[in-house]
């Protein structure tokens, strides 16, 4: 990407815009059709156009952005890596194993659930012409992912003995498990496991990789540019190129989209998304289940009065979920049922939806002797809608007689001191879309600090049993049983699942086909 050229083009467009504003709306309309490329007609059934450069904008991580996605926490870090590197696989409900493999042909599980064999897809080539082998996968798993501190890689490290993975020939990797698990494909093929070449230590521009695009330019905090990799395994992208830009402000991302400076805007705030509703040139493409973020409130069971299950139930009944969906997200969200991971294959089935019942909540609080109790809900603007949700929940609590108030921390502070966070009586939280049972084992089982005093060895055992069950129907039954206990007695109010409110120019297509929607991929995308 030539930044100079960009800036000039931007200035030119800005000047034209200013002139148009001065002259009047007629010219403004004329200007807005002055697009860098022709507006092709894409009727139903028209085949997607190939070529062009898609420009997408994300929040980004500022100057601390790094190409090392194993240690890069921002969404853009992973989006960039997905464009650049090959993946083990993505979750795909329509796939044979519930996943769509990338650089793998398949994963076999031994009968005793103690080893997973990863079969490498033959003929995958890096940009330097070398062929991808088991050594590359081994290096990515045992040298890089095993050392990462990001939760998603810790999740895999809690299930698999990554350090003891072995190559068996050029096309096989044998991965031992730490405990018998049958759902390991879902853990390995969540989309996060990307493969780099054996021996990679430092991540830099120009290093060989095997993703759909080649990185041609990267400036931390500003953006990156890619061109199509013509030898990409499976399919070759339709786009000639891809530009990923950092635009931190939601309104600015929406403005760039409506003015035609970008084609795709990631994660808009609910209000910004609502303002785009009437815009004929763009469309909202919210992520679909299971790529939904859960917004929740954690009640600390190690402190009174949340040690009383009646109080916990009262708090769950007090939440007016429909109003939260309608008010905070303008309807662009889904009601939650106090359990995380909605839409994942191991999410509990057949549980009734928790009602909004303030009367019953009052009665329960009175029975528990907690009517008129005082509580402070601590939260922070960690993801759009979080503070607004807390504000509404506190109003709901006031209606059932709880003297509740919100304490809002500045951005980035809520989780900064984790022990202090885990000791809060009532705290706001959000859950990234990850499978239900493996996540429970990692972050909730065994009285983990992030469980807020929940310590139920019987539930922990049920989860372990469900994960170790090869028969999928039986696994589902036991898994649901475990989640029902959490639903009944748990200390989490999870009223809403919100999508990432992405928006794109009309005519852009194929982003959703790349799966793993919360970190959009563009290997199948095309422009209008």
């Amino acid at each position: 990407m030539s930044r100079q050229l960009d800036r000039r083009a931007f200035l030119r467009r800005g000047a034209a815009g200013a002139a148009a504003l001065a002259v009047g709306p007629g010219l403004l309309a004329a200007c807005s059709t002055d697009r860098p490329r022709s507006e092709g007609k894409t009727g139903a059934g028209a085949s997607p156009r190939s070529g062009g450069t898609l420009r997408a904008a994300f929040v980004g991580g500022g100057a601390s952005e790094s190409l090392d996605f194993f240690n890069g926490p921002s969404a853009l870090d992973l989006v960039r890596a997905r464009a650049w590197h090959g993946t083990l696989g993505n979750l795909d409900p329509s796939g044979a194993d519930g996943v769509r493999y990338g650089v793998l042909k398949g994963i076999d599980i031994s009968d005793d659930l103690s080893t997973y064999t990863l079969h490498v897809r033959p003929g995958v080539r890096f940009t330097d012409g070398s062929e991808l082998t088991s050594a590359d996968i081994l290096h990515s798993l045992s040298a890089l992912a095993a050392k990462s501190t990001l939760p998603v890689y810790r999740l895999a490290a809690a299930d698999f003995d990554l350090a003891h993975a072995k190559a068996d020939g050029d096309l096989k990797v044998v991965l031992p498990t730490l405990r018998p698990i049958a759902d390991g494909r879902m853990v390995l093929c969540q989309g996060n496991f990307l493969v780099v070449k054996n021996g990679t230590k430092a991540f830099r521009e120009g290093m060989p990789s095997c993703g759909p695009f080649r990185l041609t330019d990267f400036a931390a905090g500003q953006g990156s540019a890619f061109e199509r990799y013509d030898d990409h395994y499976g399919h070759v992208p339709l786009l000639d190129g891809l530009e990923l830009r950092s635009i931190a402000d939601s309104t600015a991302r929406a403005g760039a989209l409506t003015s035609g400076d970008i084609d795709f805007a990631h994660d808009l705030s609910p209000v910004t998304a609502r303002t785009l509703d009437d815009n004929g040139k763009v469309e909202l493409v919210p992520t679909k289940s299971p790529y939904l973020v859960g917004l929740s409130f954690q009640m600390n069971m190690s402190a009174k009065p949340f040690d009383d299950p009646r109080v916990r139930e009262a708090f769950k009944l007090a939440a007016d979920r429909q109003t939260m969906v309608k008010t905070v997200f303008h309807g662009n969200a889904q009601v939650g049922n106090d359990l995380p991971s909605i839409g994942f294959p191991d999410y509990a089935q057949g549980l009734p939806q928790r009602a909004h019942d303030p009367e019953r909540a009052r009665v329960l609080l009175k029975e528990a002797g907690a009517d008129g109790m005082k509580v402070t809900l601590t939260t922070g603007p960690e993801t759009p809608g979080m503070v607004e949700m807390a504000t509404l929940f506190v109003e709901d609590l006031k209606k059932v007689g709880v003297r509740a108030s919100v304490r809002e921390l500045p951005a980035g502070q809520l989780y900064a001191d984790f022990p202090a966070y885990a000791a809060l009586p009532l705290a706001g939280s959000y859950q990234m879309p990850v499978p239900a049972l493996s996540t429970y084992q990692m972050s909730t089982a065994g009285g983990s600090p992030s469980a807020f005093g929940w310590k139920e060895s019987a539930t922990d055992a049920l989860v372990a049993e469900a994960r170790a069950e090869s028969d999928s129907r039986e696994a589902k039954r036991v898994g649901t049983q475990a989640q029902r206990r959490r639903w009944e007695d748990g200390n989490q109010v999870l009223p809403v699942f919100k999508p990432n409110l992405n928006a794109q120019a009309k005519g852009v297509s194929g982003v959703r086909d790349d799966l793993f929607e919360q970190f959009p991929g563009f290997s199948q995308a095309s422009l209008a």
Partner: protein
Amino acid sequence: MTTILAPPGRRVRDNRPDTPRRRRSPLITGAGTLLVILFALLGPLVAPYSPTAQLAAPFQQPDGQFLLGTDVLGRDVASRVLGGGRTIVLTALAGTAAAGAVGMAAGVLAALASRRSGDLLLRCVDALAVLPGLLVVLVLAAGFPGSHAALVAAVALATAPFSTRVLRAAADTVLRSGYVEAALARGDGRWAVLRHDVLPNIAGPALMDTALRLVASLHLSATAGFLGLGPGGAAPDWGRMVSENVPGAALAVTPFLAPALLLVLLSVAVGLLAGRLADRAGRGAA
């Protein structure tokens, strides 16, 4: 005692040629300011609804039920506007009072002390003044999230150094005037001189300075609200209302325009009042 000496202000003014000047009574600006401040302080008492209750769909247009429409979370904008000025005004007033007290004490002390230690004290104060006011507010508010006291302290810290400088200069002039030297030579105690000769004569500049600091304090406390510092959460605050409703400007105008206009009105009124006071004090003291 001082009664036998004319205060220096009057004496100087008598010697000054009468310059023609537009002399409008500060009464009108004073009344205007008082009105806005009263609106901010007493507004919560007349609000039709709870300022935090979610009542309807977000960004509804004004109608008979909601005079200014509803905000980003479906709360009544009118009730929030009525409730949202108190924090800003009280924080600014408390911060200004604290800054005034600190500035007065430090300024007079610096003037009373020997030249060298007075200068040293002033250098220390200057070191504080180097920090941008907003930075001080940001750091303290982030360190003590949601604390009113921290915000007041931050506002005071950000404005006090300037008061100190002004009041030291004012006290210096008075201290070096002949009648103070006469009073000291006569054997009056330092405390008595301070009380009867110095303080009454720097009251004018002090008042003017305080009014100017109040403008700065208002800006700071409104900015803190806008940035989501201060009490935060659901509590109404004009600064915060502007920032939380601006993204929906295309959907509804009143939720961000009403608090923004009130902020403008408040700071203009206080600014004009400060200007008038400065004018008077200038005529009185210079």
